[in-house]
């Protein structure tokens, strides 16, 4: 597609449940990033993929968070045993992966609410 697509746009889940958030990057973009943004804050880095592999997962807050990108395109962010503190907008971005030359293209995000 023309842009980065994230689904669902909104997700409400109960505390303790498991959720999956999906990101479809721009075709041909080798780099994919997940960020989390709380209200009134800037986006915080979670994980970065170059191709199929996670090149940097230093931003994942704990082992309840996991992300995959098995074929080097679509990525899924998985959150186990959700907590109310996980409520935020989860943003995905992709780039051509040329490092310093690229701006990122962001999706519209998934607003996760844990009740």
């Amino acid at each position, binding site marked *: 597609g023309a842009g980065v697509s994230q689904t669902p746009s909104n997700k409400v889940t109960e505390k303790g449940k498991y959720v999956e958030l999906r990101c479809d990057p721009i075709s041909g973009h080798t780099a994919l990033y997940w*960020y989390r943004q709380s209200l009134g804050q800037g986006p*915080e880095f979670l994980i970065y993929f170059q191709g199929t592999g996670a090149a940097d997962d230093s931003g994942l807050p704990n082992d309840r968070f996991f992300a995959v990108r098995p074929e080097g395109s679509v990525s899924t962010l998985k959150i186990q045993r959700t907590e109310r503190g996980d409520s935020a*907008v989860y943003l995905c*971005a992709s780039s051509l992966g040329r*490092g310093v030359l690229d*701006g*990122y293209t*962001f999706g*519209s995000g998934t607003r996760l609410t844990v009740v």
Partner: protein
Amino acid sequence: SQQGEEDPQALSIQEGENATMNCSYKTSINNLQWYRQNSGRGLVHLILIRSNEREKHSGRLRVTLDTSKKSSSLLITASRAADTASYFCATVEQGAQKLVFGQGTRLTINP
């Protein structure tokens, strides 16, 4: 973690005036980028300035970078109501790939 600070946190001006936002950061960088965000959802890339550049223009946008002071500014000239949004600076550290964002400036343009 956040890279640095943006100043001011909120700015309200009249349509047609110029808006200036500042960003400071802490580490050595490869490049610095500015993004706009409407209604707390997707961010839109505005402009990228490399560490060896001092000034860059794009339409009504002017960005400066002072690596000795670890600071950048974004100037929007002849502001319009549609410029109302949050503006974030973000840096790519040397040797890294990820963007690290500031806290953002909330800009309101009054008609």
